[in-house]
């Protein structure tokens, strides 16, 4: 059983959804990014996505784009991302990397998979990679026992959802709305429909991301999904209110996933 399997099994036993928090490594500085990620685990985040900053993050809205650019401007390198993974994994929370493909491609995905494993990472979420383009990456993950996490979207056909369901390990990431990352006033009905469609195709847990920013929204999503992913709202909290802002929001979200009826 992988760390993610254990986490989702434990959350299921507790009758709640898992809370997954995202922050980019190196924003606003290396030290503060790690402090903030550790703080969110202390405040109740169950698993962490360490964002790998990238010059051209196609799936990101303005908040995360700006954070990636600021991190790169501050000099964040690939080695820093892996160092951040090591520091966060030391908390015991399952730690993944959320990374666009070119930096991994450039590093060499085999070498990178090994480095991720050595740092204590449990897997990677790859927003611009589809299973069909990833045979060698999947082989490396199998050999090293890492969990590859691909996304599904409202526009995915059932066939494609089935492919992702067969390929992923750990969980299926459901990008619940069409569009880029960013806080949204409402989580549409589409999110629930997508989760239902995923459940027909696979027994893997389903985590919903894109748009969740408050405890109430987390509770709402937790009522039909196995995991709630929060990104932009945590980045904004870090930007405006520092590590304590992250701690406070994480606590609110943690309460949210526990209060779902």
């Amino acid at each position, binding site marked *: 059983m992988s760390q993610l399997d254990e986490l989702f099994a434990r959350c299921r036993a507790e009758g709640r959804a898992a809370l997954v928090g995202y922050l980019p490594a190196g924003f606003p500085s290396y030290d503060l990014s790690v402090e903030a990620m550790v703080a969110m685990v202390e405040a109740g985040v169950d698993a962490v996505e360490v964002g790998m900053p*990238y*010059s*051209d993050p*196609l*799936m990101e*809205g303005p908040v995360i*784009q700006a954070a990636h*650019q600021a991190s*790169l401007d501050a000099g964040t*390198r*690939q080695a820093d991302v892996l160092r951040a993974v090591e520091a966060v994994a030391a908390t015991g929370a399952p730690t993944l990397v959320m990374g666009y*493909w*070119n*930096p*991994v*491609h*450039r*590093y060499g995905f085999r070498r990178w998979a090994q480095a991720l494993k050595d740092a204590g990472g449990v897997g990677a979420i790859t*927003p*611009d*990679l*589809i299973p*069909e*383009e990833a045979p060698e990456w999947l082989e490396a993950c199998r050999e090293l026992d890492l969990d590859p996490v*691909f*996304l*599904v*979207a*409202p*526009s*995915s*056909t059932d066939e*494609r959802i089935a492919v*992702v369901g067969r390929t992923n390990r750990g969980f299926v990431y459901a*990008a619940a709305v*069409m*569009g*880029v990352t960013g806080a949204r006033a409402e989580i549409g009905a589409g999110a629930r429909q997508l989760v239902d469609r995923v459940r027909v195709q696979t027994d893997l847990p389903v985590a919903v991301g894109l748009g969740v920013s408050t405890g109430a929204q987390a509770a709402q999503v937790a009522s039909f999904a196995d995991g709630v992913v929060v990104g932009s709202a945590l980045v904004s909290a870090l930007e405006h209110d520092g590590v304590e802002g992250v701690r406070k929001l994480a606590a609110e979200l943690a309460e949210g996933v526990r209060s779902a009826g």
Partner: protein
Amino acid sequence: MSQSPDQAGHFGPYGGRFVPEALIAALDELTAAHLAAKSDPVFLTELDRLLTTYAGRPTPLTDARRLSEHAGGARILLKREDLAHTGSHKINNVLGQALLTKQMGKKRVIAETGAGQHGVATATACALFGFECTVYMGEEDTRRQALNVARMRLLGAEVVPVSSGTKTLKDATNEAMRDWVTNVETTHYVIGSVVGPHPFPMMVRDFQRVIGVEARQQCLDLVGRLPDAVVACVGGGSNAMGLFHPFLDDTSVALVGCEAGGDGVETGRHAAPLTAGEPGVLHGARSYLMQDEDGQTALTTSISAGLDYPGVGPEHALLRDSGRATYTGITDGWAMQALEKVAKTEGILIAIETAHAFAGACDWGRAQVAAGRAAEDLVMIVNTSGRGDKDVDTAARWFGLVTGEELAESELVRAHEGEQP
């Protein structure tokens, strides 16, 4: 040799689809529509009608006799895409994609643009077809190609200046992709070159092939044989791919691609991924790419907004590796000299992008003669991808053609000096 990608859009190790899952359904729909259209006589007749009666095809092949002395005496034939409606080859692709948009029942179109030629062509087709049109353009490019911004707006398009990242074509493409992910159900993204996820590199090539098909026949009619070389500038690579493709099996014909050498490829300040990049993934496809050790996209430098892009189409990557085509970097200075030479010897004001091809053609001709080939036996076709109206302002400054006073008088210059930081 006439290569097609495999079913998943791979040209050897290049191409493919490196995009968010949310776009896959739309890419599948587009692939199916394109493949069906390729063998649909109704579609082909309609496209042919548009190309003939609206875009003005076939474009002529012009014998550039006076220019030939600058190419060691080799004969230079100009494929006159600058004479196509809207002033560049971009219209060929846009009319094809506009017809597909109509077939798919979409009513909103988005595009990225660098020099503004693709944006103008897209705005034009949208006016003709009655589509809503939004064009993303880097803020720096809206300044250096202000004339085209005005043209697009006159044609009814919304032009969105992009101020993130490099403020040029790369970031305009990022923004267009983000729009597409959000609005894919109602919107078609008309990519302007042979880049992006499958089926774009194949589809845009198919729509641009008309350049090479015409040029090949025109050359046979005029000269009685195939050319020794065909030469084109390479930004994303669509005018080059359109010219090269019908010659792929003619192994006696050299295929020469001219990238933006900026300040000189050796300085690192350029936009020549095939000449000096490494394989990587950008904007949905694997190809050659300018990037740093960590896989972050590198900054590019070029006087030409249309070539100022760190990536290139995947089919070019394969042609580079196989050696079937050769690619070379042309510096800003060398390109501008060529622009002046073409203007003064042939009376044709070409785009700065296009000037890179002319500089490369002159180099190629002279190199052949230096290697002992008889100049009078050499024939080249140079793709005259676009006209230079949009670049008059840049050229005026480069060559110091107008006095400071005249510059200050110029409405255009004043308009965008007001925007300068």
